[in-house]
């Protein structure tokens, strides 16, 4: 590189730095390297809190964590005196990346046509450049389960990290087939069926579900027989059956979306009968049947927490108190928002759950280590431990508290820019130029 070039590059860099905050219409880049975050209060989640501690990030992993740790040569040292470090928060249920503008149907990618389409892959449709992704991660949420919705088997959800330019770069190691449990309840204002008609529809839906399940079992049996004989399987192209095969074989989890008390009980009976490896999602009336869920030992993705009660007769705080009541009964829970553009409110959903009975410590686990365990990725995510993926956040206080600032976010060891459309618009318009005059 010649002298002239290096000067112009330096000038360009300086110009970028000066203008970065004012005119940034595009996101700046994430940075990878060796980082030493020093003098911080580290909330490891699984191994207590460390005062005046250091976290070393290298090759995308947490290379060391503790007090009095030497910083490796060449590491970028970030003084975190007075700051707190938490694992990145995990939202156990969203449509993030699958929907851009919810009233514009062609930007919605979570609801495909068809009732029995477990093969539809949410990960395929994740838009890594969705404007909502930076908006979410600057609030401390680094990983989300993003879900299809709609019919009986609407597709396969995927766990994604909120950094990367392709779905594969974002993929965080867990997929799960979603089942919307046959509901005996109403579907809102448009549902004007009689109670008898609802019951009939529920019974038929359950019958159809069981028939479909049996079909998948048969398919799996054919597959097993073919494998044993070493001959190719003589079945037509059937991606739905392929997708269900590991589920009916009990090798893969099944996420059952269910809310009404009666429906939760019927789902629990079904899970036992089918010996399915199930996770329950939603569970807004879980508090009514918490003991039964606990007895069945089925984990629950609960939420949204900041939401209305399901019945006019319910206490006003039923959804706020639901996670605490489930936990008290002995249910393993992870909290979710079921949001798209406002997944960033996950810390507040956890905060409300904490205030209404769950307590701060359990609420923190319900957005970190518990979802990681439920999704089978606790060796990688959910706590600050040596060898885990470096998904963590640096804050100036309690991450649930509304006024707390998230100061730095690391995802897969990348330091992501603390920038988003909302921040860019703030910088451009706080003191608009030109102002009132021409």
């Amino acid at each position: 590189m010649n002298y002239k070039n290096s000067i112009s590059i330096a000038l360009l860099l300086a110009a970028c730095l000066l203008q970065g905050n004012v005119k940034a219409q595009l996101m700046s880049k994430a940075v990878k390297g060796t980082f030493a975050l020093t003098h911080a209060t580290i909330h490891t989640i699984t191994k207590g809190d460390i005062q005046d501690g250091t976290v070393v990030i290298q090759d995308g992993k947490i290379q060391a964590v503790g007090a009095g740790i030497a910083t490796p040569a060449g590491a970028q040292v970030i003084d975190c005196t007075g700051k707190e470090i938490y694992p990145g928060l995990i939202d156990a249920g969203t449509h993030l990346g699958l929907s851009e503008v919810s009233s514009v149907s062609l930007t919605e990618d979570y609801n495909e046509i068809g009732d029995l389409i477990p093969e539809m892959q949410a990960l395929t449709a994740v838009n890594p450049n969705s404007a909502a992704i930076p908006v979410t991660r600057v609030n401390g949420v680094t990983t989300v389960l993003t879900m299809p919705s709609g019919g009986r088997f609407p597709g396969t959800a995927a766990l994604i990290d909120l950094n990367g330019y392709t779905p594969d770069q974002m993929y965080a190691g867990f997929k799960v087939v979603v089942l919307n449990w046959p509901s005996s309840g109403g579907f809102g204002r448009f549902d004007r069926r009689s109670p008898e008609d609802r019951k009939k529809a529920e019974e038929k839906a359950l019958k159809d579900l069981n028939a479909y399940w049996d079909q998948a079992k048969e398919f799996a049996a054919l597959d097993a027989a073919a494998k044993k004989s070493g001959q190719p399987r003589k079945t037509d192209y059937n991606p739905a059956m392929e997708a269900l095969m590991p589920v009916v074989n009990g090798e893969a989890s099944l996420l059952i979306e269910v809310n009404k008390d009666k429906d939760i009980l019927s789902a629990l009976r079904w899970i036992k009968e089918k010996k399915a490896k199930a996770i329950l999602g939603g569970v807004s009336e879980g508090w009514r049947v918490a003991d039964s869920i606990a007895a069945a030992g089925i984990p629950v993705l609960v939420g949204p927490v900041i939401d209305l009660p399901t019945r006019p007769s319910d206490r006003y705080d039923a959804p706020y108190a639901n996670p605490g009541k489930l936990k008290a009964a002995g249910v393993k829970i992870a909290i979710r928002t079921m949001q798209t553009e406002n997944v960033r409110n996950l810390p507040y959903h956890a905060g409300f759950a904490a205030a209404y009975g769950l307590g701060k410590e359990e609420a923190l686990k319900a957005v970190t280590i518990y979802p990681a365990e439920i999704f089978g990725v606790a060796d990688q995510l959910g706590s600050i431990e040596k060898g885990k993926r470096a998904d963590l956040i640096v804050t100036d206080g309690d991450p649930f508290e509304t006024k707390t600032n998230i100061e730095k976010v690391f995802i897969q060891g990348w330091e992501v820019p603390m920038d988003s459309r909302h921040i860019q618009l703030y910088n451009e318009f706080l003191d608009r130029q030109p102002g009132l005059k021409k």
Partner: protein
Amino acid sequence: MKQLFSLIFILSASITLSWSQPSKGSLLIKNGTVLTVTKGTLTNSDVLIVDGIIKKIGKNISAPKGVEVIDATGLYVMPGIIDAHSHIGIDVVNEATNPVTADVWVGDALDPMDVSIYRALAGGTTTSHAMHGSANVIGGQCETIKHRFGSTNPNDLRMDGAPRTIKFALGENPMRVHGEGNGIIPRTRMGVEEVIRRAFSEAQAYQAKWDAYNKDKMKNPRALAPEYSRRLETLADILSGKVMIHCHSYRADEILMLMNVCKDFGVKKICFQHVNEGFKVAPELANFGAYASVFADWWAYKFEVYYSTAYNAAILTRNGVVTSINSDSPDLIRHLYHEAAKTQHYGGLSDDEALALITINPAKQLGVEDRIGSLEEGKEGDVAIFRNHPLSVYAVPVRTIIDGVVYFDIDKDPSDIRVSIDPDNLPTFQQYTEEDRCMDGVFEYLFENR
């Protein structure tokens, strides 16, 4: 005779119904942290309410004889929260049959038995602006209500003396309902302007006819009165400043459009509702003297809110626009204290600035700032008491008081609060799906009845 008795009975019953005043109470709230909003924060202080009015705020106030004392030690005492945009406590939201429906009034459709009112109380919200929906460019008139839950009399909800207001709506909602839905103007933002200008011009002509008649009838006993129109009468009242516009709006261009129309017709009072792109024209809003009532962080649910920012309230506040945070939702109205706290995360507003967004500022926007919206002697005794600071995510409302009467007490919260239990309508499970209550009732009208 029997008939006469029943007639007397019916008459007296209806007189009692319409004349009975909602109850007013006396209370002494002792030893709390009093967040007055307008006059600072007072520690270990008391608030005395007598006959529904704040009599005294200070230290060591002793309770007059027979007045109940609430121990607020360790608790936070703030003005009852005010929501400048909601649709609770009403039977219907939209009269979506014409782009202009200034003749209808939400006050004719109050539903005192809506449990949403109690749920709002349980979130510290004591007053809300029950609004017409956003299906029409010029919608119906609205009603400011106090959440006096427990009565079956709709009149008990009204905040008597609150100024009249009317709902306007710009952008996608009226365009979708009337242009796309019915093939009539407006299908574009050009059409929206045309509808308003036409309506205002017709109102001017109507008023001129009535003015001429009123002048004429003094000397001409045979003068014929012009035809009465409640729609035009209401529009004329907007032009004369008797009715304040509360306008659903999102985009900067349409916000500027309405300010220009209002300038041309001499209308000075506007509160823009939602106004997601208000931050882009904050200097113009401040210069006009327009108010803004916004969401804390809603965006991306339709295209006209895709280029939004959660820093909207902070930018508007810093530019000198009187701003409030509203709910437009039976859920959000239960935690407006939390919505207001988000402005501390997005834009670093101070405690008093954030609290003003849900108290004194919405009071100004509803024209009732001399009566409610802050804790001051002489104001009405509407109070919310919290465990933990109301701007903390861990805040829990514990008591909510209107006119000195306790309407919500967390220690006496019954498991089923409904006033009227209809045996044909037993509690059923219901998933709430609608995002935008502003459009309540419109889809049935558009897609089910045709």
